[in-house]
């Protein structure tokens, strides 16, 4: 089976997120003062070959721990779908 996995890697809460701040500023200047708490991170999308959804998820978790996210500064979230 092949699974399509969506990963979101976000700056850890509490860390300064200058990109998020800049976007929030820009949104407000553009007439969207109703947007707040903006944070910007990375979205990664990949196919993974696995026997089961659980295995796919476990596999991508390993990838995140090893490479896709920096444990010092980032948190990640997965969503596994069929592909």
């Amino acid at each position: 089976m092949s699974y399509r996995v969506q990963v979101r890697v976000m700056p850890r809460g509490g860390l300064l997120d200058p990109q998020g701040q800049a976007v929030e500023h820009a949104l407000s200047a553009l007439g969207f003062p109703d947007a707040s708490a903006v944070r910007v991170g990375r979205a990664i999308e990949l196919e993974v070959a696995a026997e089961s959804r659980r295995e796919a998820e476990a596999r991508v978790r390993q990838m995140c721990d090893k490479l896709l996210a920096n444990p010092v500064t980032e948190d990640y979230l997965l969503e596994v779908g069929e592909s």
Partner: protein
Amino acid sequence: MTSSTAAAVVTAASPFPGERPVTDAVVREHNLNEVEYGRILELLGRTPTLTELGVFSALWSEHCSYKHSKPVLQTFPTAGPQVVQGPGENAGVLRLPDGWAVAFKIESHNHPSAVEPYQGAATGVGGILRDVFTMGARPVAVLNSLRFGPLDQPRNRYLFAGVVRGVGDYGNCVGIPTLGGEVGFAPGYTGNPLVNAMCVGLLRESDLIRAAAHGVGNVLLCVGARTGRDGIHGASFASEELSERSEARRPQVQVGDPFTEKLLLEASLELITSGLIVAIQDMGAAGLTSSSAEMAARGGVGVEIDTGLVPTREAGMTPYEILLSESQERMLVVAEPYRVEEIQRVCAKWELGAEPIGHVTDDGIFRVRHHGLVVAAIPGQRLVDDCPIYQPAAREGEDARARRTAKPQRPARTDLQGALELLLDSPNLASKRWVYEQYDSTVQASTVLGPGGDAGVLQVPGTAFGLAVTVDCNNRLVALDPYEGGKAAVAEAARNIACTGAVPLGITDCLNFGNPEKPEVFFQFREACRGIADACRAFDTPVTGGNVSFYNESPAGAVDPTPTIGMVGLLARVADRVPSHFSTPGDEILLLGATRGGLGGSAYWTEVFDFIGGSPAPVDLAAERSLQRLLASAAGRGLLRSAHDASEGGLAVALAEAAMGDAYVESGFGAVADLGAYADGVPAEAILYGEDGARVVTSAAPSNVDALVSLAGEHGVPVHRAGRVGERGGALELRLGGRLFTWSIGALRRIYYTAIPRRMRHPDVDRSAGA
């Protein structure tokens, strides 16, 4: 469609399965007119296949064929003892001391940047780097010349920010220092920004390689990135077939990958210096088509390519798409067959593929197969050479003449004091630090003078000598008087080079104009080129290549004619380089050159009077030449502490810039100068803000002044001993006609260094508005 000529069929080719038949409408879509199509029929003796039509349309496009500009470009001086390679190759090459040579070239990426500023600018830098390393030269500097609409419009801010980021990210990643550039803002560029990138590379003259295919049976290899459906003639094609297959919008934007470029750079130089290959050319505009056809034509041979062998990014690409793709970071290499494995080993070390895709033939035919089926077969030399050449009508536009003879309305109060502050606050004159701080200017550890002064200077590693590099064009002068404006662009470039102590060697040019089929545009083009040619002859700086970019039109009309001049100069001893800022209290300030007070086309009239007009001061080529020689000679004897040319904003701005110092000193210097006795009968405002050429503000240690004055006399250059450099953080005091003008240097610095950042606080806002 049938052919009216009864000529015999020259070659045979079959349509690729599924390909549309070639109809009148399809021919028009390919931007080929009747004369051109007639010539294609005659040259083939039959109707072309769609693939062939695509090939013709690419090679006979303005960009590849120079069909409107060739006769004019042929009037440029291109010879000289220093010329190793003139126009016609990927880059020009000039000789340096000790077996070294410099390869350099400038190229525009205006239209891609108007659509997608970041990627457009980034891929523009990528392309020009490849043009230089494909000659066997290692890129050692990049420069950029940019034009945008005014910064009070959000769309212009968005384009400016995106372009600067794109230029920076690409060059920074590859590791080439940006040593200079220019940025200008004027309403005419609003719908059509200009993005010109220049690259300068160093090579041993013996390593020079030319992009000519030789040796029947030699292999063609595709090296580097895979081929995708990028940039397949976005503008000219609205192919039904393509839009049926694609979901929403077709990906036409080329995305740059500077990391792959860096690997390609290292691999290419290794292939060239190890002698493993016969020829190499980058796949730039019109991709595989132009690179293979041009290499074959230069070598007087034929080529046969199998598009089925080209590594692609997506499945199911047609020969048409593969031939016309403008995917970035690819090279076409010609090599002897027994070298292929070794070449692949070198490329693999740099994590790149190298796939054989064809070979050199002896029949002179440009032949394309796709897994056996011949889909294109065209006589190669005629494909490259036979595009009809046009001699468009040229007539000066009414309004240009009217603007030149117009006189400005004097504002109610002329505030000579406040004018300097206004000028330094104009984004056109203000410090471009906001731009060049985004560019790595010190990587390669050879930067002697970075951006922020006149020309940039780098040391040639392992030698005592250096190169000075600059790009310049005052588009306002060209718009008002194309001939004098063309001369002025070359003169300013040469002056910038000379200010560092270097001797101008040669130029490359990027000719940005509107639609050449409009007589008033072609007039600008022809006259500007005549000016460039005359100036280059006077300075012994031959034209070694360049680029023509026509059809730069916004809804409001053609852009200002902007022939950007990229120049390199030789600094015999790097240790003699002259910075542009004052550095030592007590030094004497000397003005070199004569002031007549020309205000036509000046920044003063533009920014203070809100008037663009008048007749620009004529360029005195002999005076410029004398001044250049004087500067080189004075620098070589160590007589100069600083030299800065007076251009936009005149003497007042030049003096202020020299006094303010660079952005990183704690403070500038005060300066006192008496301009009273300097220019008899010239009104104060014209002394302060007039823009005559051939003038430089210098400072010298008191002990060197006599020698400098007598040297200037020997060169026939007028000198005015104007005053002295004062203490740190002092004031700029200019005395003339019994009046004293005083500006605090700290206050001027704040204006000058914050003018652009103040306007760019929210650069990325409002991408769409105001488009």
